C-alpha cells in the first residue's frame, strides 16, 4: 500500500475528483442495498397476501428511482476516478519526456531505447491501474463489502451473516494467491513469446544461411518446437486463469448452501421470513465482487509499486550538462581554441583524445581526417558540449565553453551528424527543424546550397514529401544533403560537417563545397571526412590517429610531408579511377 503514499502528491492535487469519486462510490454501495431489500419485502407481502396494488407501484417507483440514480452515480465516479488515473499517466508521461529531453548523450549511451520505451508505456499503464482500479477496488471492496455485511447483519440476521461469511475470506485469499501465480506464469509465457519472436527475427535475418544449407524444413520444425513451448507456457496461464471461476463458484455455492440450510431453520423457528431469506441470498451475491476486488487489490498495488519505483528512479537521474550559475547569455562568436590534455568517455579507461592543441580563426575552415575510431567525432562533440569532464579547456571567442549558456552555445553551431537522422515529417519541416517559422524561400535556399533542391522537386509531393521512418525511403546521399540543408538554414557561426558527405558522389561533393565557400564567407566551418577531397581546400588540416594529432598543415604542406596523408590521398585517387572502371 506504500504506493498510495508515494502517489500522495497526485491525490492531493486531484483531491476534488477523488473525494467526489469516493463519495459517489459510497453512495452507490449504499443504493445497491435497496433492490435486494425490496425483493425480500415484496416476496413476504406476496407470501402473506398483504400486497396491494398501491404498495406495489410505490415499491417499483423506488426501484426505478434507485436504478436511475445508480446509473448516473456510476457514470460520474468513473469519470472522477478513472479520469484522474488517465490524467496521472498523462502527467507522468509528460514529465518523462521532459526529462528525456534534458538528458545528455552519456545517458543514452548507457540506456537502451527499448527499455526507456517500456518505462513510458508498460510502467505508466501499471501506475494508471493503481490510481484507477487500485482506488476503486480498495474503496469498493471496503464499502460495498462493509455495507452489505452491515445490512445483512442488522436488517436480517447477524447469526446467519456470521455463518455465511465463513467461506468468504478464503475467496479473497485464493484469488490473491492465484493473482500472484498468474502474474508469474504470465511472465514466463511472455518470455517464451519473446524468445519465439527472437527466433523468428533470427530466421529472417539468417534466411540466406538457412536457404544455403537447405534447412527450411528443419528450421520450421525448430519453430514448431518453440511455438509448442509457447503453447505449454500459455497453458499454465490458462489453467491458473481457469481456476478463478470454479473457485468463486464453489465458495459462493457453499455460502449459499449455508444460507439456505441455516436460514431455512430460522424461518421454521420464525426468526426469519422467507422474503428475508431471499433478500439475504441476493446480498450474498453482492458480496462476490468485493471479495474478488480485495484479492485483485494486492496484485494491482504490487505491480503499481514496482512500476512507480522504476519510473521515479528514472526521473531522479541527474541531468549532467547544466548551465553555470552566471553563464553568459550571448551567442558566442570568434576564434576557437582547443587546449585539450586528455578526454576519456565516462566508464572507460582508455582516453579517446590526448594532447589536442590547435586554434582556428574566425572564418577559417578546418579539416580533420583519420581512420574510424581515431577520435574525430568526439573532438566535435566536445565543442557542442555533448560530453564534458575533459582535462584542459576549449575556448570559443576567448571564453570557455561552459561560460556560455548551453542554449546560446548551440545556437552558434550548426551540426550535421554522421548518422543522418530525419524525422517523420515532410522535407520542408525537416529542413526547417531549427526554425519552424522559416519561409519557403529560406528553406529552398538552404536546399539549393546543399544541392538537394533538384532532387526534392523530382519527388511526387516535392517539399511536402514525408520522410523518416514512416515516409518514403531516400538514398543515403539524399538524407545527408537534407541534413546539411537543415544545418545551413540556421546560418550558424560555426558549421560542422561530421563525415556528412560520405554518401554523395564526387561531383556533388564538389558542388556543395564550392557553394559553402561562397555562402559562408567570414564564418567558421569544420569538416571531418574519410575522403580527403572534402577537406583538401581547408585552411588547416589535422590528421588524427588514436586520439592524437599526427600530422597538421595545409593540403600542400601535407603532400610534401610524405606521410599518412599523402599515401591516403594517392590511394583515394586510385580508388576513384577504379570506380570509373580504370579509365
Amino acid at each position, binding site marked *: 500500500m506504500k504506493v498510495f503514499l508515494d502517489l500522495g502528491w497526485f491525490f492531493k492535487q486531484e483531491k476534488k475528483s477523488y473525494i467526489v469519486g469516493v463519495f459517489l462510490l459510497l453512495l452507490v454501495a449504499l443504493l445497491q442495498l435497496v433492490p435486494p431489500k425490496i425483493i425480500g419485502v415484496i416476496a413476504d407481502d406476496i407470501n402473506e397476501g398483504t400486497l396491494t396494488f398501491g404498495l406495489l407501484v410505490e415499491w417499483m417507483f423506488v426501484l426505478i428511482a434507485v436504478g436511475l440514480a445508480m446509473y448516473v452515480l456510476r457514470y460520474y465516479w468513473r469519470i472522477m476516478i478513472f479520469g484522474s488515473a488517465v490524467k496521472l499517466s498523462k502527467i507522468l508521461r509528460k514529465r518523462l519526456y521532459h526529462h528525456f529531453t534534458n538528458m545528455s548523450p552519456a545517458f543514452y549511451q548507457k540506456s537502451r531505447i527499448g527499455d526507456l520505451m517500456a518505462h513510458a508505456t508498460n510502467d505508466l499503464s501499471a501506475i494508471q491501474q493503481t490510481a484507477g482500479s487500485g482506488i476503486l477496488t480498495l474503496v469498493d471492496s471496503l464499502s460495498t463489502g462493509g455495507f452489505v455485511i452491515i445490512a445483512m447483519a442488522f436488517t436480517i440476521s447477524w447469526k446467519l451473516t456470521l455463518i455465511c461469511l465463513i467461506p468468504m475470506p478464503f475467496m479473497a485469499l485464493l484469488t490473491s494467491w492465484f493473482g500472484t501465480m498468474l502474474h508469474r506464469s504470465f511472465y514466463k509465457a511472455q518470455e517464451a513469446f519473446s524468445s519465439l519472436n527472437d527466433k*523468428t527475427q533470427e530466421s529472417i535475418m539468417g534466411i540466406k544461411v538457412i536457404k544455403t544449407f537447405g534447412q527450411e524444413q*528443419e528450421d520450421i520444425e525448430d519453430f514448431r518446437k518453440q511455438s509448442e513451448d509457447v503453447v505449454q507456457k500459455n497453458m499454465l496461464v490458462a489453467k491458473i486463469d*481457469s481456476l478463478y471461476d470454479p473457485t468463486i463458484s464453489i465458495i459462493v455455492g457453499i455460502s449459499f448452501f449455508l444460507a439456505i440450510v441455516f436460514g431455512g431453520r430460522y424461518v421454521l423457528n420464525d426468526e426469519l421470513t422467507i422474503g428475508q431469506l431471499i433478500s439475504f441470498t441476493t446480498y450474498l451475491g453482492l458480496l462476490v465482487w468485493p471479495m474478488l476486488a480485495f484479492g485483485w487489490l494486492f496484485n494491482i498495488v504490487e505491480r503499481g509499486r514496482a512500476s512507480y519505483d522504476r519510473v521515479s528512479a528514472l526521473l531522479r537521474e541527474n541531468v549532467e550538462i547544466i548551465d553555470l550559475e552566471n553563464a553568459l547569455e550571448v551567442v558566442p562568436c570568434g576564434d576557437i581554441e582547443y587546449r585539450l590534455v586528455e578526454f576519456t568517455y565516462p566508464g572507460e579507461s582508455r582516453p579517446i583524445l590526448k594532447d589536442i592543441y590547435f586554434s582556428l580563426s574566425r572564418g577559417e575552415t578546418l579539416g580533420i581526417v583519420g581512420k574510424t575510431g581515431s577520435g574525430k567525432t568526439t573532438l566535435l562533440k566536445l565543442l557542442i558540449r555533448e560530453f564534458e569532464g575533459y582535462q584542459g579547456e576549449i575556448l570559443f571567442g576567448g571564453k570557455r565553453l561552459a561560460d556560455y549558456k548551453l542554449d546560446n552555445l548551440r545556437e552558434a553551431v550548426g551540426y550535421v551528424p554522421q548518422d543522418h537522422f530525419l524525422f517523420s515529417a515532410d522535407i520542408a519541416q525537416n529542413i526547417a527543424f531549427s526554425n519552424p517559422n522559416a519561409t519557403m524561400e529560406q528553406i529552398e535556399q538552404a536546399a539549393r546550397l546543399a544541392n538537394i533542391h533538384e532532387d526534392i522537386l523530382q519527388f511526387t509531393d516535392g517539399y511536402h514529401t514525408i520522410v523518416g521512418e514512416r515516409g518514403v525511403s531516400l538514398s543515403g546521399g539524399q538524407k545527408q544533403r537534407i541534413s546539411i540543408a537543415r544545418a545551413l538554414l540556421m546560418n550558424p557561426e560555426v558549421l560542422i560537417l561530421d563525415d556528412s558527405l560520405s554518401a554523395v558522389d564526387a561531383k556533388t561533393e564538389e558542388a556543395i563545397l564550392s557553394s559553402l565557400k561562397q555562402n559562408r564567407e567570414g564564418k567558421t566551418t569544420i569538416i571531418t571526412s574519410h575522403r580527403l577531397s572534402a577537406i583538401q581546400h581547408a585552411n588547416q588540416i589535422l590528421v588524427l590517429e588514436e586520439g592524437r594529432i599526427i600530422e597538421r598543415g595545409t593540403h600542400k604542406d601535407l603532400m610534401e610531408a610524405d606521410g599518412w596523408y599523402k*599515401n591516403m590521398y594517392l590511394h583515394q585517387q586510385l580508388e576513384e579511377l577504379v570506380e570509373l572502371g580504370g579509365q
Partner: protein
Amino acid sequence: MEEKIELSGREQRKVLFRLLSYTKPHKKIIAWAFLLLLLTTIGDIILPILVATFIDDYLQPRRLEFQPLLMLGSTYMGIQIIKSILLFFQLVKFQEIALHIIQQLRIDVFSKVQALGLKYFDNTPAGSIVSRVTNDTEAIKDMFETVISTFIQSGFLLIGIFITMFILNVKLALLCVIIIPILLFVMVLYRKWSSRFYLDMRERLSQLNAKLSESLQGMSIIQVFRQEKRLRKEFGDINEQHYNAGMKNIKIDGLLLRPAIDLIYIVALIIVLSYFGITSFTHTIQIGVIYAFINYLDRFFEPVNQMMMRLSLYQQAIVAGSRVFKLLDEQELAPVQNEDQPLSITEGKIKFKNVSFSYDGKRDVLKNISFTANPGETVALVGHTGSGKSSIINLMMRFYEFERGDILIDGHSIRDFSKDELREKMGLVLQDPFLFYGTIKDNIRLHHSSMTDQRVEEAAKFVQADTFIERLDDGYNHKVVERGSTFSSGQRQLIAFARTIAANPKILVLDEATANIDTETEEAIQTALAKMRKGRTTIAIAHRLSTIQDAELILVLHKGEIVERGTHQELLAYRGLYHKLFLLQNGAVEPLEDVVN
C-alpha cells in the same frame, strides 16, 4: 510502419470465416469442450430450481422430513462441486483450442516465410515480417481465447436460462424477452461508438509511442538544434489528445457498459416483481419460483457484461488476421527446381552461359556473363562494390530466378537438379557469417541432427577453428549469444567455414569477409581457405586479392560486365583495372603516384 487497413463488412466476414476454418482439425476437442459447456450450463440452471423446490415444497409448507432434505442438500452440493470442476476443464479446453489454433497459424505463416524468395525479403522490412508471425497472431489469439469462447459460453448460458424460464412460467418468460431487444440495442450502439473511439485511442497511443521512440532516437539532433521546447510541446499535444481520447472511452464505457447493463437489470427486476405482484392478487404464487427467476436474472447479466467488454478485441483481431492472410497469400516464392529427375552432381563443372539478370526488371546488374569453372578449379570474382559479384553468387545459389542465359552444372541446367541435391553439394560461405542462438556445436551442425560430434570437431579442426574454440569455456558447447557478437569477425568466419566443411560440399561458393580481421586470425583464415578449396570447384568473391593469386581464372567485373579475365600474372601484365586494384591493396607510394598521374 504499419499501413492502415480499412476493411468492409464483407471483407471482415471473409477474414473471420477463414480464421474459423482453423478450428476444423480440432473437431474432437471442440466437441469435448462443448459437452463440458453443456454440462456446466445445465448445472447452473438446475441449482436455483433445487432451491426453489426446497422453498416451495418444504420451507413454505413447513414439512421437515429429514431424509428428503438430506437428499436435496447433498444433491445441491454434489452438483455444485461437480459443476465447478467441470467448469475448470471446460475453461481450460477452450483456451487450449485457441492456443493450438494459433500455433498452427503461426507455423503456417512461418513456413510460408521460409518458402518465399529473397526478393520478398529485399522489399519487406524484417521487423514487419516478424510482426506478422508473432504479434498479429497474438492479437488473433486474444480473439479466439476471449471473444469467441466468451460469446459461446455466454450464449449457451443465456439460451439455457431462457429455456428454463419458459418451462417455469411462459407468460413471464415472454415478458422478459422484451429486454433482449434493449440489450441488443445497447450492444449495437456500444459497438458502433466504441469501435470508433477505441480505434481512435489506439491510434493516438501508437502516435504517442512513435513520437517518443523517434525523439529518443533523434535526441542528439533535437538537442543540438535546441528544439527541446518545441518537441515537448508537440509531444504534450499528442499526450493531451490521447488523454482526451481516453476520457471519451471512459465516458462511452460509463454510459453504455456496466452502469447501463445494471440499469437494464433493474428494469428486468421490475418486470418480474410486478408480474408476480399483480398475479398474486388473483392467484397464489410459489415463492420458490420468484426466487428462481430472480436468481436467473442475477446470472443473466454477468455474461452480457463480459461479451460487451470483449467487443473491441474483435476488431483488432480481424485487422491482424487480414494482415496475416495477406502474407499467407503472397506470391513472391523462391525459385522452383525440377524435382522429377534424379540428377546428381558428380564432377562439379560449372558453366555460365550468357547470363543476364536484373533485380527490378529495369536495370541489368549482370550483362552476358559467360565463364567455365572446371572440376576442382577456382574462379575468382573481383571488382568494386556494385560491380555484380554478389549477384553471380545469388544466381548460383538459386536465391533469385533468372530468365536470360543459363547456368550449367556437369552439363545440365541448374534448374534440373533437385533442391536437396543442390543444397547438399553446394556450400556457401557468406560475407557476414550469421551465427544463430545456441552453442558453437549447434552452429556448425545446424539442423543436421544425424551429424556426430566427432564430425563437427573434425570440421572445426580442418579449418583450424579448433584452437580458439577449445580455449572457450565449455569448448564446443560454448553459448553463442547476440548473433555471435562476442566473437571477432574472423572467429565468426572460421565457425562458418567449419559449418560448410561439415556438410562436405562438392562445390564451394565463397563470399570473402571485408571486415577488419586481426592478423592472427587472418592467417588461419587463409590456410583454411586454401585447404577448403582443394578438390572442390570454387567460385570466390575476393576482396583481398592476395587470397586468390593462385586461382585458375580471375574475372574482373565492372558494372555487371566481365571487363578482364585471366590469371593473376596475365592480368597484372595487362596493367588494366586488376592492376590498379592490386596496387590499391599492396602498392607503395611511388607506383601509386605513377598510376594516378
